[in-house]
């Protein structure tokens, strides 16, 4: 990508500073009201130091405006950090710049960016990485955890890096554009499709149920219920239980109750001698 062509050397140094500091953005959490504000301020400090070098009052005001609640999927959030850096630059240069718009834009981007970031990185890349990792690790191979880390982190860190520069050079108009021309929709659909395919495949390989129940036949070998179930549809019970959990979740049942419910169900089945 040719993103850093028009960026001066000092600005590049500052953006690299933001990139490295952004790794710690979620290290602290200042309660439910501010969340990761300290991490955000710490991450954009290189920008504040650079543009308010001779203006301590300006830097003070900038720090104060960023003490509000902050939370964006962290490797996508660098886009906003770059964007904020470019706006703070403008604010330092132009006397009549509306400083409030910086916070307004930052806040308005949190929802959409986290939505995309969570579904691509949590829902797809991590699921693929874990799928590959689990299948190797289940045989005791150390390649499992190693590949898992590589498959997730390489795209994640590259995204973190390029979005820092993109936020700085492209600015807010870019997000509006890809929303308006529909590219965002295609990206979202592709991510969800791949994610669902992987989750389906992992439901088949990882959700397991086997019944020990058998029907005794006079004079012959008893017939296992499980054989019937498999003939009907392979993995019928795991699939139904997964879909049931999904249905309960969509009815806004608390996750912990569902976890407990599955736990209790399995134990009862065990006590009854079904499994």
């Amino acid at each position, binding site marked *: 990508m040719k993103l850093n062509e028009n960026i001066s050397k000092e600005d590049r140094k500052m953006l690299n500073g933001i990139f490295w500091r952004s*790794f*710690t953005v*979620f*290290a*602290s*959490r200042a*309660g439910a009201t501010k969340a990761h504000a*300290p991490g955000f*301020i710490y991450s954009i*400090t290189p920008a504040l130091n650079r543009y308010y070098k001779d203006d301590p*009052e300006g830097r*003070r005001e900038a*720090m*104060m405006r960023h*003490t509000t609640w902050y*939370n964006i999927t*962290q*490797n996508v959030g660098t886009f906003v950090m770059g964007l904020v850096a470019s706006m703070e630059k403008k604010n330092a240069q132009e006397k009549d710049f509306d400083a409030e718009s910086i916070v307004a834009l930052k806040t308005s981007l949190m929802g959409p960016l986290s939505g995309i970031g969570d579904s691509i990185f*949590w829902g797809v890349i*991590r*699921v693929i*990485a874990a*799928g*590959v990792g689990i299948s190797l*690790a289940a045989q*005791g191979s*150390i390649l*499992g955890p190693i590949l*898992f880390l590589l498959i*997730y982190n390489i795209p*994640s860190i590259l995204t973190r890096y390029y979005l820092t520069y993109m936020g700085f050079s492209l600015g807010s108009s870019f997000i509006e554009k890809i929303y308006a021309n*529909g590219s965002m*929709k*295609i990206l979202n*659909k*592709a*991510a969800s*499709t791949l*994610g*669902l*395919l*992987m*989750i*389906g*495949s*992992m*439901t*088949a390989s*990882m959700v397991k*149920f086997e019944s020990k129940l058998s029907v005794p036949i006079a004079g012959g070998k008893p017939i296992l219920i499980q054989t019937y179930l498999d003939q009907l549809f392979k993995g019928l019970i795991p699939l139904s239980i*997964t879909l049931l*959990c999904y249905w309960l*979740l969509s009815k806004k049942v608390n996750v*912990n109750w569902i976890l407990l419910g*599955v*736990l209790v169900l399995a*134990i*009862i089945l*065990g006590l009854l*001698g079904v499994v």
Partner: protein
Amino acid sequence: MYREAFLAALTVFVCYGGNWLFGQTMIERPLVVGCIAGIIFGDMRAGIIMGASLEAIFMGAVDIGGALSAEPVTATVLATTFSIVLNVNEKAALALAVPIGVLAAFISMFMKNVVMNLFAPLVDKYAKDNNPRAMAIMHYSMWFINYFVFSLITFFSVLEGAKPVQHMINSIPDNLMAGLSATGGLLPAVGFAILMRMLWSKKLAPYFFLGFIMVAYLNLPSVAVAALGIILVLVISFKDKQLLDMENKQKELEKRPVAAAGTGASNNETAEEQEEEDFFS
């Protein structure tokens, strides 16, 4: 037991704290934590296998927007410790991991959202003082305090909990044990359901079932499913892009006649002329 307790707590601190200090690089996931705990307690293979089973269970336990359903690090470390050090049956250790994870998540949320609120006024103060240095120091101190206190839970659980847990597990009857083993097989369902909530739409639902059949009947390994999935998604996206371009063009065409209604006739003429020229050339 002091040594084991200390090592287990250290693993939690390094993996959980480290994950959030180094950009959520996934070193807090059971796959990695199990491997590290295995190395520390001298049985890497057992740790990796334990991690693989727990990864499936905690797949959906993701920290999105600070709302955590189950905390995988403490659960994995304790399950691996119990399994390797105390020789607890692997299946039973897995079943224990789930309630531990839910409880740990509760404590973690309490720490991060309630206890750490103490620092919120300081954030405002250091901003007002124009003091980024103090802000940075506080940022890192909060990290240390939170994860240090949190890893103490593991320390005391191993120290105090080891004997009662061993005793309890020895006295579990067989059919209850079978039930506990079955939980390990069924719990991943909850995790996948949580992920499905994020991605599901009626139009895309068939892909979930396609993925299921690819493994249940075709026995494809997950790398193959991922590769086929990427090809499929690319093909669909190219088609979608084509459709989108056509739609955008159509929209532009619909707009144009209104804007250029007066010049419509002459436009037609030039278009015809153009066509003739193209024909003869």
